[in-house]
């Protein structure tokens, strides 16, 4: 199985929610226009979709997230969006107009207290609401770490199923943005992957963001949803204006190849695509997998791919040691050991705090990925 099998987007989810509109789903729905400030390459692929019944709008990721939040609040009256500065529209403009449309009781500001934001969200979710909390930058998520690990993740388990906080969705912009420095660029996804009881989801395009966010909000488990802040403005594609979901726990094979499997998520997917393009010029065909959901991750797709290509490269912005790439490599190597033609390789951020001026050296750029592809193929 190479591409997602659905040829339709299913609208309406959860229990008792009416179907709104049918949208035809493009057979290959990749449409990424992304450019980094420091690299001139511009990757664009025209969106292919059949015109019947499709009402789409050209959206960037911030618009897509906004669209998802609006749709969720429409569909579910017992839902709230809250966080620091969300009332005026949010620092990334993802919540513009939500307060004026849905009222101060459903979209409101919180004090500067991440622990409080998440704690409050847990309480709301425990009472059956959909609590969509925003942490302004993922770097600030740590004060809420105890709430996430000790409360949200364990709620269902330690109450024997009597209570749960499945309605909790924690959104946070993460990742490098070109000028973020130590406290506006971190990628803390691996911390949450180690916590049983939480799901971790990371989109890599506006379409993915909307579909995955809607799926996360209506998922019966607490989800941590990291939005690559670089893509808020630099990625744009046609996204259906209605509601749709993309299933959690399923990876997306962006392009097929024979020689090596590249696995990534979020903004790093764009970097992998650039590296794959450069590798193609040297005669190496890469299979690119966007993991989408890190916890639980799609073992079948990744392992099947590695069994086909025989080589694995995992790339993420988070530091190498203790990053989620370690778990992927450990598990895939165990399951597909005899298929491997070369050692698995991780191309990741360095084991230092996130730098400011040295960002371009720190990040796993397309050229670093290309070098790793070459050394893997020439092993």
């Amino acid at each position, binding site marked *: 199985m190479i591409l997602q099998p659905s040829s339709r987007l299913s609208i309406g989810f959860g229990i008792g929610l009416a179907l709104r509109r049918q949208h035809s789903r493009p057979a290959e729905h990749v449409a990424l226009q992304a450019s980094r400030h420091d690299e001139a390459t511009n990757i664009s692929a025209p969106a292919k979709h059949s015109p019947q019944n499709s009402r789409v709008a050209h959206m960037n990721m911030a618009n897509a997230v906004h669209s998802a939040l609006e749709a969720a609040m429409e569909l579910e009256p017992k839902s709230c969006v809250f966080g620091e500065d969300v009332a005026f529209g949010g620092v990334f403009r993802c919540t513009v107009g939500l307060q004026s449309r849905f009222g101060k009781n459903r979209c409101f500001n919180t004090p500067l207290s991440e622990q409080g934001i998440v704690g409050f969200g847990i309480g709301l979710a425990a009472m059956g609401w959909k609590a969509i909390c925003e942490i302004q930058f993922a*770097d*600030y998520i*740590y*004060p809420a*770490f*105890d709430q996430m*690990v*000790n409360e949200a*993740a*364990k709620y269902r*388990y*330690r109450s024997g199923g009597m209570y749960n906080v499945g309605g909790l969705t924690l959104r946070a912009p993460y990742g490098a943005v070109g000028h973020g420095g*130590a*406290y506006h660029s971190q990628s*803390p996804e*691996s*911390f949450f*992957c*180690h916590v*049983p*009881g939480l799901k971790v989801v990371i989109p890599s395009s506006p379409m993915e963001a909307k579909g995955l966010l809607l799926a996360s909000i209506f998922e019966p488990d607490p989800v941590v949803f990291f939005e690559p802040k670089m893509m808020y403005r630099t990625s744009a594609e046609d996204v259906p204006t209605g509601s749709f979901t993309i299933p959690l726990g399923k990876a997306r094979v962006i392009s097929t190849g024979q020689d090596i499997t590249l696995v990534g998520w979020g903004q790093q997917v764009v970097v992998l695509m650039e590296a794959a393009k450069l590798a193609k010029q040297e005669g190496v065909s890469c299979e690119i997998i966007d993991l989408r959901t890190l*916890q639980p991750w799609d073992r079948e797709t990744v392992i099947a791919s590695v069994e086909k290509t025989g080589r694995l490269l995992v790339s993420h912005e*988070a*530091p190498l*040691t*203790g*990053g*989620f*790439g*370690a*778990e992927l*490599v*450990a*598990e895939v*190597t*165990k*399951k597909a*050991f005899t298929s*491997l033609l*070369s*050692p*698995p*390789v*991780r191309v990741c951020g*360095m*084991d*230092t*705090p996130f730098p400011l001026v040295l960002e371009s050296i720190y990040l796993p750029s397309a050229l670093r990925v290309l070098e790793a592809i070459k050394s893997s193929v020439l092993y």
Partner: protein
Amino acid sequence: MLAQRQGMRGLVGKAGLKAAVPRPARMAAPARSRVAVQAKRECFMWEALREALDEEMEKDPAVCLIGEDVGHYGGSYKVSLGLHKKFGDLRVLDTPICENSFMGMGIGAAMTGLRPIIEGMNMGFLLLAFNQISNNAGMLHYTSGGQYKTPVVIRGPGGVGKQLGAEHSQRLESYFQSIPGVQLVACSTVHNSKALLKAAIRSDNPVVFFEHVLLYNVKGEVGGRDDVQCLEQAEVVREGTDISIFTYSRMRYVVMQAAAELEKKGYNPEVVDLISLKPFDMGTIAASVRKTRRVLIVEECMKTGGIGASLSAVISESLFDELDHQVLRLSSQDVPTAYAYELEAATIVQPSQVVQMVESAVGPRMALAA
């Protein structure tokens, strides 16, 4: 060095510094006889840790201890018993129940010249202080361009105890491992607990020092005042040829129990106690893997994204050609730890599982004669 200098003084005699024949430096009594004079001492691990704190606080007035109930109560596991009487209420500081605050206080104190040891009553409570550890302790040396250093030792009991429930049975190694800028050390024996804690206190890096709730009453040989162990070095517990078993903390005992069983069945496992969870002692690890060509990692932290995942990835990446078998991991189940005894035992690694996994990885061997 001192003996050499004393010897050199002997050279400055009538002939001055240009003595024709340099006399050998007068050596102190040979080391071996000095050690033989000291009787072998045994004590509990909590006593060993207490000795380390006591000795280091005596040696360096900047060393202080901060935590809940470390002072008047003497520590929830008696690790600081009586220290407040000796060093006073400020050097052994009882704090309110606010991990985030006293961690921040300790880090600030470290930045301004003190060397605090910050105790979390249980490692799991340090989740509340995670921002301080990650964004401050881990980063300040870097973000200040080296102007600040944070010589803190963050220690506390962690690991799965006996029916302590989900929140009090946490293993935080994995989360801390993802933070660049902190060093992770896990002690396992009475001897290495004291020697490593002393080294950690003397180190200028922020060190997270993992102790285990169930090991405090382990009795063993303890070293002296100057017995300090390298923080970055693994310990080869048992030499072998069949498979390299990498482990740490309480799992060392589980593995050794399994090793005794495996020996009877004719297997010869090599057991290495990692000690340094970050950075890994790749020298010792690589030497072991090259010898045995098979790897089993036995850890108490949960499987997904745990220490074992990191180590497995590093071994697969850098020692790919030395492996005859995929790297295996035995870790705790990916669930919160249950309260019920049977469920708790089912979530952590038992010796029988280690035995089974080694048998399947190595293949059949002839059992030793009964």
